């Protein structure tokens, strides 16, 4: 039946988008800071 193919593609698409979104959520938890950004005083440093 042609409807089954469409349903399968739609299901796979939804699954892919949900998986992607879960990965995005996981990615939003950032690692700790690598260090401290000290402001450069360019005139003083010159």
């Amino acid at each position: 039946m042609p409807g089954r193919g469409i349903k399968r593609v739609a299901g796979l698409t939804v699954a892919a988008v949900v998986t992607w979104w879960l990965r995005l959520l996981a990615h939003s938890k950032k690692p700790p800071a690598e260090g401290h950004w000290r402001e450069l005083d360019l005139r003083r440093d010159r």
Partner: protein
Amino acid sequence: MKVLLLGATGAMGRRAATELIREGGLERLTIAARARGPLENLGGLLSGSVDVRVDDFDLLAEDPAAHFSGHDIVISAAGPGYLLEERCVKAAIDARVDYVSLNDDTIAAELMSALDQEARRNEVTVVSGAGMAPGISNLLVALAARRLDEVQEVEISVGASSADAGGPATELHFLAMLGAGDFADSREARSPHPVYLPDPVGWVETFGVDHPEELALRSAYPALQAFRFRVGLVEKAVMDTVRAAAASGLGSTERRRRFLLTAARPLRPLLHAMSPGSTPWTAIRIDVRGTTGSRTRTVTYAVVDRLANLASIPLIRAASLVRGRGSGVTSIDRLSDAEELLADIAARGIRFGELEPHSL
């Protein structure tokens, strides 16, 4: 000084126009773009203390040299560079007018060296790429190099925001960079690499691309063994979509890129909502590795601000330095002392930082 500002009605151009007026010393400012309506609106806002004129023309449809003549300098905030830069530089040389731009296209930058002799013959100075990168990136590398005896590796990383993008020219360039085979070849460069940038940008997943700084750096630092340029968007969902589109060939031609930008417009709010914690700021970081005596050392600097500020402030500072030099094709770090130029940019409210890594 009689100045012609190209791309004046874009996000970068508008910021550059206000920076030019603030800088002073203008005898006449001609603002140019394709559409007359927005130009006249901008002209109305800018005029007052300065003689502001408008010139609506298409850089690709007309001979730019005819429009450039009669000015002391052409400042270009128009893009994308792969379409416009070579044409504009040739026109500036023909019209014997100095030229400074925001070009960040590698292929266009590679074509510049062939125009150097002609530019020198016509006593013209050309700085193709005097914005954030190339521009601030070159200056920060020059500053870092002072603390090293020998520069061996340079890595430049940009964390940009699609909510802080300059407009269609910036977006087309970004797509072209990722999609037209410019993606740096090695697997190491193609794989995601998290980079730590100043707040509020923080960690960004970046990918290797080719970028014009390599040309100037290889000539300035003969011991340079490796150069990497990495770029990523703070909105990971947007970056994933752009990479997927680029991988499927949608970034490979101008027509496809324009189609992609139009087709993706309705999806943007959704993609932004899918990228929690993203922020509309742009940051650039440079890591310069080299030797001091017998020790190996890495110096890391960075800056964060709105892209329009990071691009336009160095652009206008560079423009104020080129007049009457006749230096041919050159780069921003050769116009003046790098630290002095960075201090001038800092005086405009841009804050630069040096990374002090947490000890292990």
